[in-house]
């Protein structure tokens, strides 16, 4: 079979599925529409995984596959490049969109346009993970962004609409700078594909090269905005906490990390961009720490989770930046990149799990205040839940994010911090781990039994608890457990894909070493201690002050400008 034609299936199958869903929406009766949506998900989300996995041997043997769309000359046509990174991204997206979609069936948004939009999103992510052309990247980023804005505001609640509006203005105005950057690069090099630009940059004079670097910077900062690195992350809290639960899981799980791995390609354009990676690693660790501190101060359950997304993305950025700093062709760099990818994968699973279970709990309790909700289990059993699946799934997610074995979070965090060990980043990330434990102890209190409610309701209600919620939660919890247990195998699989046989490290990573177990114990103890401090009088005063910090629309642009200044300082000086 010709691999080139397989390469485009993850783009065109979801699009075809989306168009089938839409056509059936305007032609068929309601029941048939439902059927067509299941069919669309089957061929749009699951079939591409199979086709992409068929490409696995080619990736192992050849490294990467190139395709010029329409077989034109690569100087003018759009070049697509499929490598192991694209493979991982596509499988990750399609696999993890599924539970969120299942969850949305009963809780909403359940209209057929929602199905069509997430199918288009999957196609866009496939395109974005393969494209090697800056303008195509621009278009794909805009499609991804617009889908995110529409999904966030899909329930038309005013705070969700406001969050979506804020995100939209911020992100689409930064994309204008991306366009300006691509203008500068086209004018200097006469080409839009990464390969041609890299070649052309070698022949520029130093003054022209400086302009080209500014252009690249103006392209990198908008992508970093989508990743929500710390000074640029104001939009995330509103957008991810106000969106419908299924959408929050999608956004936090997948959408904020895809641009980061796209940046791996952008950074390969010029070797000088390597200057940026070291400061970015520090910014990443700072993001992890500050995100956790803010998370600890929140009282809104979903806002707390949104701050945790920022914090976890900080972990990933640190590993990613150090990988680029060492060079992804070398063995330590590749292992760091694998660690970042593995943590992305496990974060997508457990954050999806947390958002969905907390969403179920807060919906049932009709409040989002961590201090007020108590006894979620009895409330849920009133709604017809016989067995506390929601609580168990929440605990799986919480233990996973706290990095406690045998769940996947432990393995990915251990792997990630293991290779950072001598640097100061390791210390900062360990402190952030302590904060994570503390804030999740705070969040878990909503499941504590409440005596008042328990006495009121002895009689079981006849209501049936929606099956799709349980199904999606169980899928994610099983994934969290299985990827934890088989982490060694997954790690080896990724090693096969990213490191050539000759360079593979001989000694294997040991997860259950004495030091790791002791570190986990210390982290948990520290977390409990921190929680006690945070609930004391002084602690709660400080946290209350932190919660009071507000940023408005204009401040975001100030942060944008500061980031540009900071990064250009590190780039040129």
């Amino acid at each position, binding site marked *: 079979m010709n691999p080139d034609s397989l390469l485009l299936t993850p783009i065109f199958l979801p699009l075809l599925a989306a168009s089938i869903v839409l056509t059936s929406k305007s032609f068929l009766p309601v029941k048939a529409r439902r059927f067509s949506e299941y069919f669309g998900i089957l061929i749009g989300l699951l079939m591409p995984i199979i086709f992409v996995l068929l490409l696995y041997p080619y990736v192992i043997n050849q490294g990467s596959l190139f395709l010029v769309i329409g077989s034109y000359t690569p100087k003018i046509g759009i070049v697509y490049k499929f490598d192991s990174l694209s493979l991982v991204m596509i499988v990750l997206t399609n696999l993890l969109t599924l539970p969120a979609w299942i969850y949305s069936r009963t809780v909403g948004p359940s209209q057929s346009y929602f199905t069509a939009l997430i199918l288009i999103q999957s196609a866009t992510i496939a395109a974005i993970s393969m494209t090697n052309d800056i303008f195509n990247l621009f278009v794909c980023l805009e499609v991804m962004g617009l889908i995110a804005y529409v999904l966030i505001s899909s329930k038309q609640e005013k705070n969700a*609409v406001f969050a979506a509006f804020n995100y939209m203005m911020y992100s689409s*105005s930064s994309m204008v700078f991306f366009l300006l950057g691509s203008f500068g690069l086209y004018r200097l090099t006469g080409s839009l594909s990464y390969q041609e630009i890299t070649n052309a940059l070698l022949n520029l004079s130093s003054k022209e090269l400086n302009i080209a670097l500014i252009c690249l910077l103006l392209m990198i900062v908008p992508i970093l905005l989508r990743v929500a690195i710390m000074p640029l992350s104001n939009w995330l809290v509103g957008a991810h906490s106000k969106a419908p639960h299924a959408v929050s899981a999608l956004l936090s799980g997948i959408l904020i990390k895809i641009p980061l791995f796209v940046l791996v390609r952008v950074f390969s354009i010029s070797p000088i961009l390597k200057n940026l990676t070291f400061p970015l690693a520090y910014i990443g660790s700072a993001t992890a720490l500050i995100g956790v501190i803010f998370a600890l101060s929140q009282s809104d359950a979903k806002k707390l989770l949104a701050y945790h997304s920022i914090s976890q993305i900080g972990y990933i950025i640190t590993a990613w930046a150090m990988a680029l700093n060492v060079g992804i062709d070398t063995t330590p760099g590749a292992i760091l990149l694998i660690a970042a990818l593995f943590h992305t994968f496990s974060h997508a699973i457990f954050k999806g799990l947390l958002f969905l279970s907390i969403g179920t709990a807060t919906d049932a309790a009709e409040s989002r205040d961590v201090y007020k909700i108590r006894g979620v289990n009895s409330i849920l059993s009133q709604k017809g839940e016989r067995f506390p699946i929601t609580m168990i799934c929440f605990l799986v997610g919480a233990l996973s994010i706290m990095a406690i074995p045998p769940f996947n979070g432990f393995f990915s965090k251990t792997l990630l911090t293991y290779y950072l060990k001598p640097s100061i980043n390791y210390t900062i990330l360990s402190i952030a781990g302590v904060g994570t434990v503390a804030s999740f102890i705070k969040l878990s209190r909503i499941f504590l039994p409440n005596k008042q409610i328990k006495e009121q309701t002895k009689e079981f209600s006849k209501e049936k608890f929606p099956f799709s919620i349980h199904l999606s939660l169980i899928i994610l919890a099983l994934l969290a457990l299985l990827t934890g247990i088989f982490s060694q195998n997954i790690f080896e699989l990724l090693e096969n894909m990213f490191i050539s046989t000759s360079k593979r490290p001989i000694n294997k990573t040991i997860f259950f070493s004495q030091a790791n177990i002791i570190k986990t114990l210390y982290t948990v103890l520290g977390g409990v201690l921190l929680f006690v401090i945070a609930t004391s009088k002084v602690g709660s005063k400080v946290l209350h002050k932190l919660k009071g910090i507000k940023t408005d629309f204009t401040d975001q642009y100030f942060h944008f400008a500061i980031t540009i200044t900071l990064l250009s300082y590190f780039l040129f000086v």
Partner: protein
Amino acid sequence: MIIERVLIFLIFITGFIGLIGVKNIIKKIIGLSLLNSSIVLLFILEASRIGDHAPILVGQEKNIVDPVPQALMLTAIVIGVCVTSLSLAMAVRLYKTTGSLDITIIKERIENES
């Protein structure tokens, strides 16, 4: 040549000031449109410097202008309009539920209720 670039730069900055300095959300959207159209103007203006003829191959005039930026800008214009329409719909929705177009007042009213 320099004057044209300065003028486009001034349009760009005007749009940016409109985006961050004005409180009315519809004016913010107007600022975003201005930003977008300044980039479109810049692209087309610079690309037209290398030729005297439109990029339609009817005669044998060799010095046509560069067609690639024009094709790119078609896409950029359409994306700009899509963003405008969606954000205007959101602005109307915000006005209907909060009764104001001022971004700080909207934020206050939303935060007070929740």
